[in-house]
């Protein structure tokens, strides 16, 4: 009984660590943005910053309270869905983000649907025919994609598909794209770019995971028994590599978080990342904080998910 509960205990422990990390991360995000840039009230009032006006605004914004209590207030508000008010256009941050979040999730969802099957096929194939010309071609391609910045992958995609082949529009994103075909064309560029970035990571990790199981004695036994290469990999190695592969998938999807910031900016995609980059240039702190927390939470949950899959799929921990 106690033995059976052990992996669940480890999962709980992992969740606890994730929660603790989240607290530290929110602390870092809050203090980095809130405490460093000087007096917000003065910046907001600009020309009209008389001492009385600044003092009044500080009081109405609650800025004269100690930082720690403001941090706790912000954290409680965040947990309850109250994200504060934007400094720039006085709109509620939740409202600003609400419209954009769906767009970003949609992009991430499509990329996941495209890249996971492709990456798993290529990764398992490369491991199955290890050392072959196919394997080497895949390796060179993935290493090249990993070694260059995301915006360069985007640049190359634009160059190939929009400039040379003239299949797709270059850098503009049609928001009111009507009809299936127009939608497809509008989404194609961001999806192609992000899929390349995410798949490259996923292929490498999948290949490594499968090769690790191929190097075990029981797969060697299957080989000596006379099983064909595909049977050896698909029947004997793959079921045992599923845990590490799922771990690799979740881990590579966390690369979406960084990639999406660049890709939304370059293609003018109306998502949360674009909102955040714009907020950085106007120094709209409440908006930056909330967007940053959204990214941190998605990144953390993917990493934690990867760890939990690794724990639960490891029979030695059962």
């Amino acid at each position, binding site marked *: 009984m106690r033995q059976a509960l052990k992996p669940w205990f480890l999962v709980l422990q992992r969740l606890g660590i994730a929660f603790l990390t989240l607290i530290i991360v929110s602390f870092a995000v809050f203090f980095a943005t809130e405490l460093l840039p000087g007096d917000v009230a003065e910046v907001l009032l600009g020309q009209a910053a008389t001492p009385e006006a600044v003092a009044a605004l500080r009081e109405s914004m609650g800025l004269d309270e100690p930082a720690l209590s403001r941090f706790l207030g912000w954290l409680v508000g965040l947990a309850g869905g109250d994200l504060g008010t934007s400094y720039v256009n006085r709109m509620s941050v939740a409202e600003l983000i609400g419209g954009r979040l769906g767009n970003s999730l949609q992009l991430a969802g499509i990329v996941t649907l495209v890249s996971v099957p492709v990456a798993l096929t290529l990764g398992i194939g490369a491991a199955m025919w290890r050392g072959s010309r196919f394997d080497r071609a895949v390796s060179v391609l993935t290493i090249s994609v990993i070694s260059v*910045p995301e915006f*360069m992958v985007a640049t190359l995609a634009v160059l190939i598909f929009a*400039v040379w082949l003239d299949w797709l529009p270059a850098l503009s994103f049609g928001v009111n794209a009507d009809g299936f075909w127009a939608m497809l064309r509008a989404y194609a560029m961001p999806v192609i770019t992000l899929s390349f970035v995410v798949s490259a990571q996923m292929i490498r990790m999948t290949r490594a995971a499968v090769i690790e199981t191929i190097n075990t004695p029981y797969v060697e036994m299957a080989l000596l028994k006379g099983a064909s290469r595909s049977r050896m990999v698909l029947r004997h190695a793959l079921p045992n590599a599923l845990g590490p592969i799922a771990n690799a998938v979740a881990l590579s999807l966390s690369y979406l978080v960084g990639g999406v910031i*660049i890709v939304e900016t370059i293609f003018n995609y109306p998502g949360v990342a674009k909102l955040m980059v714009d907020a950085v240039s106007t120094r709209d702190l409440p908006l930056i904080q909330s967007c940053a927390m959204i990214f941190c939470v998605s*990144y953390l949950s993917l990493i934690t998910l990867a760890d939990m899959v690794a724990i639960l799929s490891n029979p030695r921990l059962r």
Partner: protein
Amino acid sequence: MTTRTSFLSALPTPRKLGYSFNMTGRIGLLVILFWAVVAVIGPMLAPYNPGEIVDWDYFGPMTGDFWLGTDYLGRDILSRILMGARYTVGIALAAVTIACAGGVILGMIAAVTGGWFDMILSRLLDAFNGIPSLLFGLVTVAAVGSSIPVLVLTLAAIYLPGAYRFARALSVNVNTMDFVTVARARGENTPYLIVREIFPNILGPVLADLGVRFVFIVLVLSGLSFLGLGVQPPNADWGALVRENIEGLSFGAPAVLFPSVAIATLTISVNMFIDNLPIKIRDRSE
């Protein structure tokens, strides 16, 4: 003849000791050295002043006068790339040095002393690993504004936890070896253990790790500059050069291609070099 060969095979050549580089590694090293030299003397080689408008035609093609074309204002791209090498290579090198030095020193101390110091430091730095790197840069730059010291320190802070984790894991393994136990029994103090026993035995893998982290830093720095938050105009690193000239992308201007190519050659060659390091340097345990 036979005596000659046996004499040669007895000599401790790099190849015999396992320190020689293969072809791919040498090509990588060559490209790295090229960019290192350019970063130092590049501005002297530049045919034009990188800030000067030399061509009235913007996004000019590659010609005899302007080898790599001109940018959106008609400035010479070759000169700007040569100048940009100094920012990209310089900032990344400074940041990776701080990150690895700090991470390795803290990692070794944590491994040797252990106890609560190790636990708290590990937990804290692990928590910082929970922030996506580009986002960390965005938030810091939003808060304090962008300048070169801020960029160096931010990039160093992003990659210090990873360097710490790597060095600590290696040091913990070395720490359990007999010669460290013997040194402890001799009564050597902690600084001696770290400097004389642990450090020489983790140096090789740490150097390889430094290269990997250098590539990450170049990528994040270029990403930040591409978003307009890195090196500020009129100066430009390679990421900023891509951003400036992104408008030229729709007609395939050389001004947007060559800065990207410069970044790619640097990062790919560092990866090639690291992947082909001699076994002796990569992993001392074998």
